[in-house]
C-alpha cells in the first residue's frame, strides 16, 4: 500500500477526526476518516490521540453528591413525617429513573396490549367459491342423511311400533273385552 507520510490536515478533516474519536460522527464521516487514516500516518496518529483522550473523558463519570448533604436538604425541605413512606416512590423511581427499565416496561406493556388485541380479534374467514360449493354439497348430503333417517324412523314407528306393538295388542284386548261383554249378555238372556 502506498502510504502518505505527511499531508495537510484541513480544519474540516480535523473536526471530522475529533467527532469520530469521540464517537458522534455520522457513518459517512466515520468511513471517510477511517479510510484516510488507513492511508495516512499523520491522520491515524491524530485520530488515536483524540481517541485516547475521549476514552479518558468517557471514563470519568459523574461525581457522587455527598449523602450527608442530601440528608440535610431532605430534612429541611420535606416534612419529617412523610419521609418514612418511601416504598411507592422508590418503586416508581426505579422504573422511571433508569431508561432501560422504563423502556423494557413500555415494550412489555405494548406487547401485552398487541397480543390481547390479536387474541380477541374476531376471526374472519375467507373461503373460495369452490370451498363454499363443497361445503354446501356436504351440508346437503348431511341433511339428506338426516331426512332419510327421519323417514325410516317414521315408517318404523307407523308399521312396526304402532302396527305390531300397539294396534295388534289393542285390537286383541278390545276383542277380549267384546267377547266378555257378549258372554255376559248371553247369560242374562
Amino acid at each position: 500500500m502506498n502510504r502518505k507520510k505527511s499531508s495537510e490536515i484541513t480544519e474540516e478533516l480535523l473536526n471530522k477526526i475529533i467527532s469520530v474519536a469521540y464517537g458522534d460522527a455520522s457513518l459517512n464521516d466515520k468511513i471517510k476518516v477511517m479510510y484516510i487514516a488507513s492511508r495516512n500516518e499523520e491522520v491515524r496518529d491524530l485520530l488515536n490521540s483524540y481517541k485516547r483522550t475521549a476514552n479518558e473523558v468517557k471514563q470519568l463519570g459523574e461525581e457522587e453528591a455527598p449523602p450527608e448533604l442530601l440528608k440535610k436538604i431532605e430534612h429541611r425541605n420535606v416534612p419529617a413525617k412523610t419521609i418514612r413512606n418511601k416504598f411507592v416512590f422508590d418503586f416508581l423511581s426505579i422504573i422511571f429513573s433508569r431508561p432501560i427499565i422504563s423502556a423494557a416496561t413500555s415494550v412489555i406493556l405494548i406487547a401485552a396490549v398487541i397480543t390481547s388485541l390479536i387474541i380477541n380479534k374476531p376471526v374472519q374467514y375467507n373461503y373460495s367459491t369452490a370451498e363454499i360449493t363443497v361445503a354446501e354439497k356436504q351440508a346437503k348430503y348431511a341433511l339428506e342423511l338426516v331426512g332419510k333417517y327421519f323417514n325410516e324412523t317414521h315408517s318404523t314407528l307407523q308399521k312396526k311400533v304402532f302396527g305390531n306393538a300397539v294396534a295388534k295388542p289393542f285390537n286383541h284386548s278390545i276383542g277380549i273385552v267384546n267377547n266378555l261383554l257378549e258372554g255376559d249378555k248371553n247369560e242374562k238372556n
Partner: protein
Amino acid sequence: MLEEQRYRFLIQQYKNKIYTYSMYMLKNKMDADDVTQEVMIRIWQNIDKFNLLAAKTWIIKTTNNLCIDYLRKRSVSVNRESEIDELFEDTYSANSNNDNPYLTTHFRMMASKVKEAIQRLPENLRSVFVLYEIEGLKYKEISAALELPLNSVKVYLLRARKKLQEELKEYEPQEVI
C-alpha cells in the same frame, strides 16, 4: 404527597448532575455543596411550577446561573481554588486492571490530569463540554439550558475538545504503557 414524590424523583434523578456540574464549574467543593443545596431548595420551592419532562432543562439552567453567580462573587473575593485531587472523590473507574497497582495509579493519575485539564478550559467551553461529555445531555438540551444557539453549542464543544487535547498533549506519549 404528590409534590413530595415529584421532588424525590427529581432529586434522585439529578442530584449527581447538579453536583458534578457545580464541581467542574466552581472548582471548589464547598461552593459546589452550596450550589447543590440551593438548587435543591429551589426545586422544592418550584415543584408545582414545572412538569417533570421540562425539569431537566430548568434544573441545569438554575445550576448554571447559580454557578455563574458564585464565579462572579469569587472573582472579587479571595481565590479559594484548591488542588483538584482534594476536590473530586475518586470516581474514575479504573476498570482495566484493579490488581495491578501500577496501572491503577496510572489511571488515577490520568483521570486527575483530565479533570484538571477540563477545569482549565474557559468557562463557556467548560460548561458545554461537561454537560455533553460527562452529563450526557444532548445538543438541544444544552442549547435550552445555557440559552445558546444550537450551532454555538456544537462549536464550543469542538473547541473544548481541541483545547483539552492541547492541554493533555504533554502527558500522552510518556504515560502510555
